[in-house]
């Protein structure tokens, strides 16, 4: 249970500096703007459907508003998650505090767990705050909470994968800027891989589609929890965390 003090320390550092506030405020500003725009388009569409009752059966507020909001949020997270993870190890290496941290009676795994869960906690707080969007819709109409819930399960898994990749890259460098931008670059690459799928054919196509990190979010947004999507995110997160442990070990060896 020695991860608890590490977790508490990281939380103090997040909220004792502007990092967490900037992360939350900027993300909510952008996501809120997206939600309101999508919501306005949707209400216009439903107005029009009064004149043409033919298309009205396709109108479902959860499907037409929250699904695009989820998918937009996952792209924005790609930019924002590096803000949370870049300092986790890089800062400690730069300032030398890692030397003290790793000589306390605590396992590397516990250090990693404390840090990962602290970043996860800030992320979770962010997700809780975005519940305002379905909440607003619920105040004005009917909402399918089941589909919303699966969407959030998806965001949670996607976030875990993003955070794990970020933590790993932060353990590789002592420069926070490099850690942040490399994380962004890697995540972006894993998103753009999916674009290649459209051009490619056959087996390659399905492979590229499977690797694409945001592609897997789509099912959750629709209200479907598919094992292959869950497995994808959990695998990416677990593998990145495993690599982080190896990186910490290698650091000891090289000194």
């Amino acid at each position, binding site marked *: 249970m*020695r991860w*608890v*003090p*590490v977790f*508490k*320390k990281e939380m*103090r*550092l997040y909220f*004792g*500096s502007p990092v967490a506030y900037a992360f939350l405020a900027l993300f909510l500003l952008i996501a809120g703007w997206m939600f309101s725009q999508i919501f306005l388009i949707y209400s216009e569409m439903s107005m029009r459907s009064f004149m043409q009752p033919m298309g009205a059966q396709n109108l479902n507020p959860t499907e037409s508003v929250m699904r695009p909001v989820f998918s937009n949020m996952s792209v924005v997270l790609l930019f924002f998650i590096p803000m949370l993870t870049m300092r986790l190890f890089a800062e400690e290496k730069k*300032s*030398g*505090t890692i*030397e*003290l941290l*790793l*000589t*306390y*009676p*605590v*396992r590397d795994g516990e250090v990693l767990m404390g840090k990962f869960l602290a970043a996860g906690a800030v992320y979770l707080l962010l997700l809780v705050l975005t519940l305002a969007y379905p909440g607003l819709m619920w105040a004005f109409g009917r909402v399918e909470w089941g589909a919303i819930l699966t969407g959030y399960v998806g965001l949670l898994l996607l976030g875990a994968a993003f955070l794990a990749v970020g933590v790993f890259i932060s353990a590789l460098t002592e420069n926070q800027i490099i850690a942040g931008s490399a994380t962004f670059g890697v995540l972006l690459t894993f998103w753009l891989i999916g674009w290649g799928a459209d051009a490619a054919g056959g087996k390659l196509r399905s492979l590229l589609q499977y690797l694409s990190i945001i592609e897997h979010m789509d099912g959750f947004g629709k209200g479907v929890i598919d094992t292959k999507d869950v497995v994808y995110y959990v695998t990416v997160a677990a593998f990145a965390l495993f690599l982080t442990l190896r990186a910490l070990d290698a650091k*000891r*060896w090289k*000194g």
Partner: protein
Amino acid sequence: MIQVEHLTKRYGPVTAVSDVSFNVDKGTIVGFLGPNGAGKSTTMKILSCFMPASGGSARVAGYDVFTQSLDVRRRIGYLPENAPLYTDLPVASYLEFVAEIKGVGRRERRARVDEVMERCFITDMRRRLIGRLSKGYRQRVGLAQALLGNPDVLILDEPTIGLDPKQITEIRSLIRSLAGQHTVILSTHILPEVSMVCDGVIIINRGRIVAQGTQSELVEQVFPTSRIEVEIGGPRDAVVSALRAVPGVLGVEDLPSPDGSARALVESPRGRDVRGEVVQLVAARNWRLLELHQVGMSLEEVFIRVVAGEQETEA
């Protein structure tokens, strides 16, 4: 308490520490002395389990630093060079974090933190952000975190660096007070510090131990004879030859002196004091005794002799 055998550490092609062996007994304070880049910090990093050695072994409190790292880390307090601390945390919350991670129970945590702040004279800074503290205060916060958890062994890398003279004396007496219950290994390049604080000395140069022992042992090793310097008003040649004839004198070295007086360095076996004989000689010959003193065989001279001697043999 600390046993180091044939310890070697290479960074790529550079050998930072080579075949270092020493022991530190329980309850003693040992000073690690050496010029910059001698391998002091590297040895301490290995002892604190931060990095593994390339060869040899080290045991702290009976546990191997590599294979039983957690057991070692439960029993040490470590202050790395330059005291790296979390600058965005206030002093007291930082120390509470350290107490918790070192496994100090929730009930006594507050009391232990207060106690180390008291001992390191930082109580009045408890709410201050570490980043806002001066170098001297930071150093003391670093020492405070090392003391938390009441470890058996303290590994302090340059504990008094950046402190003002008053703080240095305070911290030295604090370290001195740790002797007996704690085993302390500290590195420094301030020689008087070792004389004041440490029981034993290890002099390290270019990754190798060049001398070790207690201070008086080292002085005896390096300077097997005791020496006095005299200045005598009298004819130079006569004075020198008369001095050579004094019983017990092993050798006389003629030193430059103003006209009308003679200055000489007189060597005699350790423990054989020839000052009385010299004074009698001067009185008998009706010369004037202008100066007579024992040449100090301080650690500083031992250090310079040993380290410089090393460099000469290599050149």
